[in-house]
């Protein structure tokens, strides 16, 4: 029972679950279409804005907004890596093959993290390119992928999606049911989008500290001082995912298979 063997074993399982491939395909569609739509909306806003607002316009702000929605699908990939086993009833067989449950979880985590990490930058590039194209099409200022700060954001997308994949996997271990884990995972991810429904101080807190909002700071090309820096934001998300993973290990070890 080597870590490498467990990793290969988990990869064989991973590639045969079609729903996960569907989610990854969906992530491509979401990154492209939302990237374009957010770009178009930003362009419209720019054209109707005052000269002062136009001067403050940052074309990179809209470039990665689609990634939060992409995150919903990426987290579903993590969820399904676990819940597909519970649904098919194969978890007991998997555990008899690898009774060290921490190692089993680690192997699954490595496959989920690697896959979701690798799809992050291409998805971010897709969203970036289409959003900037939408801006340029209407004569609004736009930037290229090589502009200062942009390559870092593109690569950072891998960190973001990788962490979100693990976040989904942890929820999968904690809840064991696809529907429950995906619903909860989605709700928690998009909560910052509903921040304006809350009283001002709460909304402020959510936008700053809520893990998915903090994690999205990874994409901030011009971070400013109001919110967390990209590094601190990534740290908040990573710490949250770590806590969830620890909970998942404890629960997975402790209960009957």
């Amino acid at each position, binding site marked *: 029972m080597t870590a490498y063997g467990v990793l290969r*074993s988990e990869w064989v*399982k991973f590639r045969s*679950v079609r729903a996960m491939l569907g989610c990854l395909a969906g992530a491509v569609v979401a990154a492209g279409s939302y990237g374009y739509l957010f770009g178009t909306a930003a362009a419209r806003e720019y054209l109707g804005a005052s000269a002062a607002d136009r001067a403050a316009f940052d074309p990179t702000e809209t470039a990665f907004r689609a990634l939060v929605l992409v995150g919903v699908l990426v987290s579903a990939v993590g969820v399904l890596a676990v819940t*597909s086993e519970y649904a*098919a009833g194969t978890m007991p*067989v998997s555990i*008899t*093959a690898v009774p060290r449950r921490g190692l089993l979880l680690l192997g699954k985590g490595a496959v989920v993290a690697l896959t979701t990490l690798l799809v992050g930058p291409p998805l971010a590039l897709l969203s970036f390119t289409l959003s900037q194209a939408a801006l340029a099409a209407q004569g609004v200022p736009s930037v290229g992928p090589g502009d200062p700060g942009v390559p870092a954001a593109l690569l950072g997308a891998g960190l973001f999606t990788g962490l979100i994949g693990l976040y989904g996997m942890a929820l999968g271990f904690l809840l064991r049911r696809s529907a429950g884990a995906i619903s909860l995972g989605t709700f928690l991810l998009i909560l910052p989008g509903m921040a304006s429904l809350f009283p001002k101080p709460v909304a402020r807190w959510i936008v700053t500290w809520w893990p998915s909002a903090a994690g999205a700071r990874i994409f901030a090309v011009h971070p400013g001082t109001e919110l967390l820096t990209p590094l601190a934001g990534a740290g908040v998300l990573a710490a949250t995912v770590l806590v969830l993973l620890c909970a998942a290990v404890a629960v997975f070890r402790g209960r009957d*298979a």
Partner: protein
Amino acid sequence: MIELRQLTRRYGEVTVVDGLSFDVRPGVVTGFLGPNGAGKTSTMRMILGLDRPTSGSATIGGRRYADLPVPLREVGALLDAHAVHPRRTAFDHLLSLAYGNGIGRRRVEEVLGLVGLADVAGRRPGGFSLGMKQRLGIAVALLGDPPVVLLDEPVNGLDPEGIRWIRTLTRSLAAEGRTVLLSSHLMSEMALTADHLVVIGRGRLIADTGLEAFVQAAARQGVLVRTPDARRLAPLLRESGATVRPGVDGGLMVTGLSGAEVGGLAGAHGIVLHELTPRRASLEDAYLELTGDSVEFATSAAGVVS
């Protein structure tokens, strides 16, 4: 060798496995019997480290399952044949389990051939018949060529050819010196397959004995007598200490006397016998007699009427 020591599992107030202690020895097929809900599957799951015992222990060669360095090379198990991902091919299903235990593709192919699934290796088990799924489950159990094999109702859903195949397989595994624990509700099949029996009821040990000894100890052996003069013979038999019950179609079931004694008694009184057959009790008779008190989900004719 599998060792159970005071193995106990409770779910809240309910004790599902209750202080089980027995050994499963190598070189023989040990049949694991008990009524529905007796705790056979629960016991096997604890042996495999899937469920945690409330108290007591289950070990394999002295080690807990979770401590086995390469478990599939030491223990192979079939618990639930339906536990396959419907879209993962038979080959990938086995391969995913093999990789974790340092077993390669060649052994996967070999074991697929062994269970007769070589032709459908690349197909998805979603469309498999129950029998094919059972064979895939057996392939999982044999994957690591393990010295200890646990099979929970492996013949469930198999056709006669498949049932015979399991019988031959388990017997040859035992003949090779492996430890084989096999549960089944098919008594006729168990009688042909097992050398040793462990019988449990409501989580408790009822018997741990050889097959022959079990049948003889539990069930009454008898002699079936057919005679045109039953009215005279029956009282004579009773006087000699036998128990006489009406047998099938006019015969008498005599217990407590041997066939020779019955024949001698009839001859001494000039009674003509048409048949004198020793009746060996079957495993099923013995089993039903022994577990009668511990059947949890009994059917009763009276219950249907009232």
